[in-house]
């Protein structure tokens, strides 16, 4: 048997069909490897460290500290008390909003802290929090305050020394306030800072180490003692919760990759048909010289696979390079190193794709009698088609198993795959049939072009669906990433509030109003806020009155946390009464946000009971409101009639518009009211915009892969149909057609396919923007030039097709061949 030499391995590259297969395998290797590597890193970060992530096996949290009885119940287990709140640190004229954890000597229960002794020094780990008198500050906080270890910073009414730079805590969480620089301080110092007062938004946690079966027992014991403001979180709950959104994102990423795999598989399948025709004569001649089946297969398949390996290797190399770039995107060192098995599986996946889609067609060459091949009568028996199909179906399923990692996830992925891969072509089939029927009256060139597409639905529909998906995702991702949020911000009223203030106390109000007046700030209103839990509906415990099983349901979330209650005499401008009426002057009335009310099954006339740390409130529902959450005014789910919340501990909340140029005085405001939380809305929106831009870039990268694989399918289908197309062109020539007609037909065929895909992609784009238009743009569609992005790709492709020189081979010879 001939050993494969470099020359022999290069020879297949002369074939267009082989080059298409090689490119298809490169694209699908890259796509599969990219998703598997990214998922591995994210899985490792979240799923395997939940006990560390939440700070214990079980966490009792509430807006008040755990009771003595509760602490006694867990006294025999390692436990730690942590208080979490937000506050502003001040140094000179600089202030920064931070997320503070005040910890005791037992912290951390799991894992270790990573700190440095000076900014940018070598990190080291320790297993204890800061001593009294010290704070440990994360690097970005230090930079904004222009401080370093050894300097002092003001927290509320107390100056504390910066003891260390905080690099990482084992329970470093995600969430709204974790966007702020993190601070660790000693729990015993909190009282002296004065930042916590009745009504302040604070979370008290009792973290318990209860490994194994003990966790369930402790949970049961503590559940029986829970106050209305308390709840229990466990490592299992946290794993499900934190992975929820990531799982969704991961599933959509996997679906996109499976679409790429299917398309690349389709390209391989079509190209393999041409390839087997190219190899057939060689196979027949080998048989006539006595070569056996094994030898033929070894030569043909072995050489083919060996020549394809460089594409697979290149795909892996590119994915590995992308994996390293991921480090920059996440802004942190990678924590997961793929094993050798992972790399082997990634290398095997494209081989499986090739085996599933191409192997059956090449394999049968060894079974066909040589005389049939040499007589140009190589028709595939029907049974082989079934075998081809089985291979083509099994290959993506095996790859899907590798991507999904679990049977449940596999089931979801396969369902979605079928829905998109079958559903979208089915949706397009109807319009294609209509176009075919209506095309009968067109002139020759467009009719011929249309028939070439319509008469081959099994090839045309997948190509069309693939292009629609790729072009639609591309234009949508581009618009959302580049423009949408900015466009929305520009549509806001000129003087929409740009700052939110929380934690103002009664005694601060007069001075605060004076400050606002001096600086020309415009305030929609001040709202008193009481933190309380909904505990009763019509006198019945809320858990009996309202049955919720879905943890993600809005109503369920409202039952599981403290709510911000307020009272007001006038209906806010961003609210509209939908049913019933607005609250009156008498106490004891409440207006509820309409969607939450629907989720909880509430009706006008129901009596609601709330429990706050400082007392209880009962009120009757008089109406439901529609709320414009995007208005940047304070908005509330529950708004009571004036004086209903009197006597309860409260703080004040407001938003205001500060004119440009007045921002420099904000540090003075913080110094004057050190306990307040000041939120810069523009800074938050900038962060959100950055996050959206990153996600859009990821979506765009996937769309590019999808587009590349769609183009490959098109090229393979074009190649597979080329022989027929050339014969038809030769016939038209024989019948008297000029070059211009042939060129018109070819260009029209592509224009109909690509143009049709672009139009459907525009429709998808508009449909995707519709809900955004309703919610953010008062029903106006935020259309932009990005929707036309597909044409920027299509028009050059058509121009190339039009200008491409045509080879003039003898038409009669082509017909006779």
């Amino acid at each position, binding site marked *: 048997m001939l050993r494969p030499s470099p020359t022999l391995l290069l020879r297949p590259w002369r074939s267009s069909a082989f080059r298409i297969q090689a490119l298809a395998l490169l694209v699908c290797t890259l796509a599969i490897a990219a998703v598997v590597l990214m998922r591995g890193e994210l899985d490792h970060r979240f799923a395997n460290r939940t006990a560390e992530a939440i700070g214990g096996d079980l966490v009792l949290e509430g807006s008040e500290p755990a009771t003595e009885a509760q602490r006694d119940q867990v006294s025999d287990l390692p436990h730690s008390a942590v208080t979490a709140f937000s506050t502003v640190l001040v140094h000179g004229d600089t202030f920064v909003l931070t997320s503070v954890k005040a910890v005791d000597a037992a912290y951390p229960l799991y894992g270790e802290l990573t700190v440095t002794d000076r900014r940018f020094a070598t990190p080291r780990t320790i297993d204890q929090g800061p001593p009294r008198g010290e704070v440990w500050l994360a690097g970005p906080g230090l930079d904004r305050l222009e401080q370093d270890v050894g300097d002092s910073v003001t927290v509320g009414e107390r100056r504390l020394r910066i003891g260390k730079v905080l690099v990482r805590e084992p329970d470093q969480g995600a969430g709204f306030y974790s966007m702020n620089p993190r601070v660790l301080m000693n729990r015993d110092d909190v009282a002296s800072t004065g930042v916590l007062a009745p009504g302040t938004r604070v979370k008290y946690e009792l973290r318990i180490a209860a490994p194994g079966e003990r966790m369930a027992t402790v949970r049961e014991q503590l559940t029986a003692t829970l106050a209305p403001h308390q709840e229990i979180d466990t490592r299992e709950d946290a794993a499900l919760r934190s992975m929820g959104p990531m799982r969704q994102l991961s599933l959509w990423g996997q679906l996109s990759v499976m679409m790429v795999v299917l398309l690349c598989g389709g390209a391989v399948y079509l190209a393999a048909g041409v390839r087997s025709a190219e190899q057939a004569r060689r196979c027949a001649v080998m048989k006539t010289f006595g070569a056996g089946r094994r030898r033929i297969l070894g030569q043909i398949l072995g050489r083919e696979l060996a020549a394809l390996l460089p594409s697979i290797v290149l795909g892996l190399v590119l994915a590995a390079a992308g994996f390293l770039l991921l480090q920059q995107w996440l802004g942190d060192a990678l924590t997961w190193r793929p094993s050798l098995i992972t790399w082997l599986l990634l290398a095997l996946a494209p081989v499986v794709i090739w085996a599933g889609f191409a192997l059956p067609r090449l394999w049968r060459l060894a079974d066909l009698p040589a005389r049939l091949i040499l007589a140009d009568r190589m028709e595939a028996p029907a049974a082989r088609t079934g075998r081809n199909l089985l291979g083509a179906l099994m290959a993506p399923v095996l790859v899907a198993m590798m991507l999904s990692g679990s049977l449940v996830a596999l089931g979801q992925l396969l369902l979605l795959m079928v829905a998109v891969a079958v559903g979208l072509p089915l949706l397009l089939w109807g319009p294609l049939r209509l176009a075919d029927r209506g095309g009968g009256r067109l002139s020759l060139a467009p009719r*011929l072009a249309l028939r070439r597409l319509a*008469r081959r639905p099994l090839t045309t529909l997948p190509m069309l669906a693939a292009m629609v998906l790729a072009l639609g995702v591309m234009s949508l991702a581009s618009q959302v990433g580049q423009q949408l949020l900015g466009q929305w911000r520009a549509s806001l009223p000129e003087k929409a509030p740009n700052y939110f203030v929380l934690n103002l106390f009664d005694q601060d109000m007069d001075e605060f109003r004076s400050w606002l007046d001096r600086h020309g700030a415009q305030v929609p209103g001040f709202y008193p806020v009481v933190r309380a839990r909904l505990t009763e509906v019509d006198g019945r415990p809320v858990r009996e009155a309202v049955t919720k099983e879905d943890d993600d349901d809005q109503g369920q979330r409202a039952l599981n946390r403290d709510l911000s209650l307020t009272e007001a005499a006038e209906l806010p401008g961003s609210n509209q009464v939908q049913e019933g009426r607005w609250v009156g002057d008498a106490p004891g009335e409440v207006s509820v946000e309409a969607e939450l009310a629907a989720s909880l099954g509430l009706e006008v006339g129901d009596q609601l009971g709330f429990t706050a740390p400082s007392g209880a409130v009962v009120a009757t529902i008089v109406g439901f409101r529609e709320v414009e959450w995007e208005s940047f005014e304070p908005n509330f789910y529950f708004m009571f009639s004036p004086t209903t919340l009197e006597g309860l501990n409260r703080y004040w909340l407001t938003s205001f518009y500060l004119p440009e140029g007045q921002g420099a005085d904000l540090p003075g405001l913080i110094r004057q009211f050190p306990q307040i939380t000041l939120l810069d809305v523009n800074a938050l929106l900038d962060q959100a915009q950055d996050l959206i831009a990153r996600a859009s870039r990821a979506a765009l990268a996937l769309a590019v892969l999808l587009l590349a694989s769609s183009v490959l399918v098109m090229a393979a289908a074009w190649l597979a149909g080329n022989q027929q197309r050339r014969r*038809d062109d030769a016939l038209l020539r*024989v*019948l*008297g057609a000029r070059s211009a007609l042939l060129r018109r037909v070819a260009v029209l065929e592509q224009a109909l396919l690509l143009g049709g895909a672009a139009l459907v992609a525009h429709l998808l784009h508009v449909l995707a923007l519709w809900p955004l238009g309703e919610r953010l743009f008062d029903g106006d569609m935020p259309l932009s030039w990005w929707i036309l992005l597909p044409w920027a790709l299509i028009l050059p492709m058509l121009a190339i097709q039009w200008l491409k020189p045509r080879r003039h081979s003898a038409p*009669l010879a082509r017909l006779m061949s």
Partner: protein
Amino acid sequence: MASTPVLVARQLSKTVPAPEGELTLLEHIDLTVQGGDTLAITGPSGSGKSTLLGLLAGLDVPSQGDVRLAGEPFSGLDEDARAALRGRYCSFVFQAFHLVADLTALENVMLPLEIAGADRARERARQWLDRVGLGKRERHFPSQLSGGEQQRVALARAFAMEPALLFADEPTGSLDRANGDQVAELLFDLNRDHGTALVLVTHDPALAAHCRAHQELVEGRLSA
């Protein structure tokens, strides 16, 4: 007064480059076909029949000699001009039918009419389909027709432009006896009814015997 011959070939030769030098496919071919004539060209495989057909129809350019179609020279014309001339005066029937698979029977017959920009293409095509007995099959695609039916569609397509000259290359070669006889009868009936000259390339002596003239091509040369 003698009418202009439909086809005149003078000293037609065709050579092609080969590793050993030049290979002569045809040499010194002289041929004249009058309007309404029927000429059979026979010869063994490899004698150059397809090459001759291509030169006569202007699908290829001779190395020497010239061809005139209805008095107009092919020589010196570019490919598009030759195509236009061919479309005006010639039509073809092939052994493998060569219908466009993506077009219906009616649309296949319409093809040469549409290429030439003729009026009432659909109506005229419909009449020709009726003439060959396939009026009820006009919406069917070639894959839905038998071999004999496909060849009849090809005949309708060939005659739709009422050409001056029809080239038929083994028109019954892919058909069984019954269908072949039916197609041959139709071919000669149409030739008689419409005065179309017929150049028939065939291996079938019985088919060749129907033609008024017969020439044999042997090793690139014609002999009567």
